[in-house]
């Protein structure tokens, strides 16, 4: 092994945090005194940095997709309002209320479902850069992301027979909702709620969506009430639904 190869091996060990104390001390000394060695370390730092940036960027894309499916919280920012603005705002609100009662048709559960249901994003297995050997599993997630929910559902169903996976079960439920198979979706979300503490809130929300889709107020209402009483991500949407359902 020549000097360069030895240095590369040492540098790899450094980036893997595998140097012993004496090795680390010797490494630091060389960094101070050996320009060529310092250059090699810097090169490795940028290469490892680029590799890690790739991973972080993929995860950032996943978070962006997830964010796109959530509603903005209502934030009260205190501002010194002129009294006239309050009066104007009150007049506008009064007009809106009158117009709403005069013009808006009665709210149906189906309407509430359509207004509130957004498919859960695939945050479980991003398909940004698939390898050439696409497995049945990655094809299922790809189908879901493409919006081919019928194929995605078939693939998720057969994969779930081999492996009980919370993420796949959540997305299968979403596929069933999108295919108007409310009963199948209800079974999926009930199972998910029973088996996954991490996705329990999501399970409850989508279960409520499935009951709204099925026009089943008796089962939908308690779920929406439970969600509305929390301060989680779905609470605001749940409170808005409750308001609509109020007699």
């Amino acid at each position: 092994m020549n000097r360069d190869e030895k240095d590369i091996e040492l540098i790899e060990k450094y980036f893997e945090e595998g140097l012993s104390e004496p090795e680390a001390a010797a490494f630091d000394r060389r960094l101070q005194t050996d320009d060529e060695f310092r250059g090699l370390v810097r090169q490795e730092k940028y290469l490892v940095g680029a590799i890690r940036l790739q991973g972080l960027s993929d995860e950032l894309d996943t978070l962006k997709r997830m964010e796109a499916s959530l509603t903005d919280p209502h934030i009260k920012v205190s501002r010194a309002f002129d009294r006239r603005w309050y009066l104007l705002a009150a007049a506008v609100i009064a007009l809106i209320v009158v117009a709403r009662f005069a013009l808006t048709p009665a709210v149906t559960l189906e309407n509430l479902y359509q207004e509130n249901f957004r498919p859960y994003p695939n945050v479980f297995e991003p398909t940004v850069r698939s390898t050439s050997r696409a497995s049945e599993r990655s094809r299922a997630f790809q189908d879901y992301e493409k919006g081919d929910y019928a194929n995605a559902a078939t693939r998720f169903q057969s994969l779930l027979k081999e492996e009980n996976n919370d993420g796949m079960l959540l997305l299968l439920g979403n596929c069933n909702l999108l295919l108007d198979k409310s009963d199948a979706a209800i079974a999926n979300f009930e199972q998910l709620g029973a088996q996954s503490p991490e996705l329990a809130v999501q399970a409850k929300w989508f279960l409520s969506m499935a009951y709204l889709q099925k026009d089943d107020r008796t089962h939908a209402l308690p779920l929406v009430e439970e969600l509305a009483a929390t301060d989680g991500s779905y609470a605001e949407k749940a409170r808005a639904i409750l308001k609509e359902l109020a007699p």
Partner: protein
Amino acid sequence: MSQDDLIQSIRTQGEKALAAIYENYRNEFLSWIVREYKCSMDDSKDIYQLTILIFYDNIREGKLQHLVSSVKTYLFGIGKNIARERQRKEKRLVPIAKEKWLKEYLIDEPSDPLDEDLFSHAKIALEKLGQPCQRLVELFYYEKKSMTEISDALGYKNPDTAKNQKCKCMARLRKLFQEQTTNHSTQYDHEPR
């Protein structure tokens, strides 16, 4: 679930547990950052996404193993630093440069500030590396997978084969990087700029 259990579940379950954390603290975080730092909603979401990424990265890198405070306090602490950096460095009306921010997070040191050109060369070299090498080095350096896990994920005969492949891939990546810097006549003199 205790704070340490939560960290353990993020380490083992990865993005699934992270998605749950993202949703759990999102509304409170966004409300706080909008009020406290007068950020727009879009900026606040960018800051929250960077916060979650850093939180996850610290767990994966082993920098965060035990929480002395709550997850919420930790997240708000990261968010506060990002919001302050943003106020210090960037124009308010321009969207947050998330990639630049991440590069600085990965590379920047007081004695060796980020060299954007060098980073671009490293990125291009990585693109040229192709599959399965790209995936292999990402599993190793980013996801911190063991050679056994990498061997299983990429279908190698055994962990030694995976280790051997990793060495070959990195050697090729270094060569591509050197070609890239030479082709672009960059004077890479091994000295911090």
